């Protein structure tokens, strides 16, 4: 095996060819010289061994040359194999790259699928949390419709005291109203049309309206708060005298009013 320190085959071949050239030139020169010159015998004696040496060297160099040529041939074969293998390697490389691309695509698709699945699970959870029995919904729907709280009665005409909100009368007859200790001859309801009803019923006997629902809500407690508002809800205690008169005067009669 050629190591880095040795000369490359090409160099060696070339140097051998150079040697051959030099040697053969010398030989030819010597022969030419000996032919042209009629040298005395002692001269010939010294030249013959010299020729023999050159010839030997020549033969040697030739042998070397042939050996080197064989080596070169083998090296050429090896080189060819190397090229074939390189091509194989290239092919494998491109295969790997292709697989890499596909893997990446698959990963992307899976990630999307997982994400969407998670979103679905989230919305399922959300829906589950907000689920209410249909019975309760129907009950509640009946409650707010039957009392005309969300849908006007079919025979409603302007002048009808009924409203989608608690009227003055209802407000005063509730717990908040009673907390205020109102004078019994308070001002009438918010509509002149309500005067009849208000006149007939002294505050003490005012009916308990269902919107205050103490029966339904027994046991129900409000969320705790640390009294950080610092203010009692209006309609309470000291405010109430103003409450009573102001409401009837400020609440400029709604458009449906009739005197």
């Amino acid at each position: 095996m050629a190591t880095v320190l040795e000369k490359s085959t090409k160099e060696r071949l070339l140097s051998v060819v150079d040697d051959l050239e030099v040697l053969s030139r010398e030989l030819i020169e010597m022969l030419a010289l000996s032919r042209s010159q009629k040298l005395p015998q002692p001269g010939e004696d010294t030249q013959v061994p010299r020729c023999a040496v050159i010839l030997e060297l020549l033969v040697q160099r030739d042998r070397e040359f042939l050996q080197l040529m064989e080596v070169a041939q083998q090296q050429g074969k090896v080189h060819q194999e190397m090229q074939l293998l390189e091509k194989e390697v290239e092919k494998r490389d491109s295969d790997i790259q292709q697989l890499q691309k596909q893997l990446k695509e698959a990963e992307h698709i899976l990630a999307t699928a997982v994400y969407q699945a998670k979103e679905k699970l989230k919305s399922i959870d959300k829906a589950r949390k907000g689920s209410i029995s249909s019975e309760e919904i129907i009950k509640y729907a009946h409650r707010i419709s039957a009392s005309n709280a969300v849908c006007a009665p079919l025979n409603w005409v302007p002048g009808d005291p009924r409203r989608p909100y608690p009227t003055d009368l209802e407000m005063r007859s509730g717990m908040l109203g009673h907390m205020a200790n109102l004078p019994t001859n308070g001002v009438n309801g918010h509509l002149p049309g309500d005067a009849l009803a208000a006149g007939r019923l002294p505050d003490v006997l005012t009916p308990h309206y269902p919107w205050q629902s103490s029966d339904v809500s027994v046991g129900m407690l409000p969320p705790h708060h640390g009294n950080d508002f610092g203010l009692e809800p209006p309609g309470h205690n000291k405010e109430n005298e103003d409450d009573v008169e102001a409401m009837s005067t400020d609440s400029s009669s709604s458009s449906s009013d009739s005197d």
Partner: protein
Amino acid sequence: TGGMSESVEQARNRFQSELEFIQCLANPNYLNFLAQRGFLRERSFINYLKYLLYWKEPEYAKFLKYPHCLHMLELLQYEHFRKELVNAQCTKFIDEQQLLHWQHYSRKRTRLQQALAEQQPPQQQQAPPHANAAAK
């Protein structure tokens, strides 16, 4: 009074009064009253209004007979709305619109029934008793 705990009785009363109060908010005239008294400008009252949002939860909302109050409560969270309520014309407008909306479904139903009645031949025409029964 920050850490004071209330008795169950007190809590029940508080529930009752808060239930009443929040439904009063459905009354635009009452809102006008509150605005003109300056309650809607007080920080503690504004905080209280925010606290009342718990009535939106189903377990509390089911006690509300006048659900319009929830919409009003949501609007009350906005300063712009609270400012406008001082104006009596504004609350009058709200009242009118509220009543119109309230009448919307009955009007729609009446129209439907009329249309149905016109389509069908007189013998098969049915009086709409179920509508009135449900309304009552």
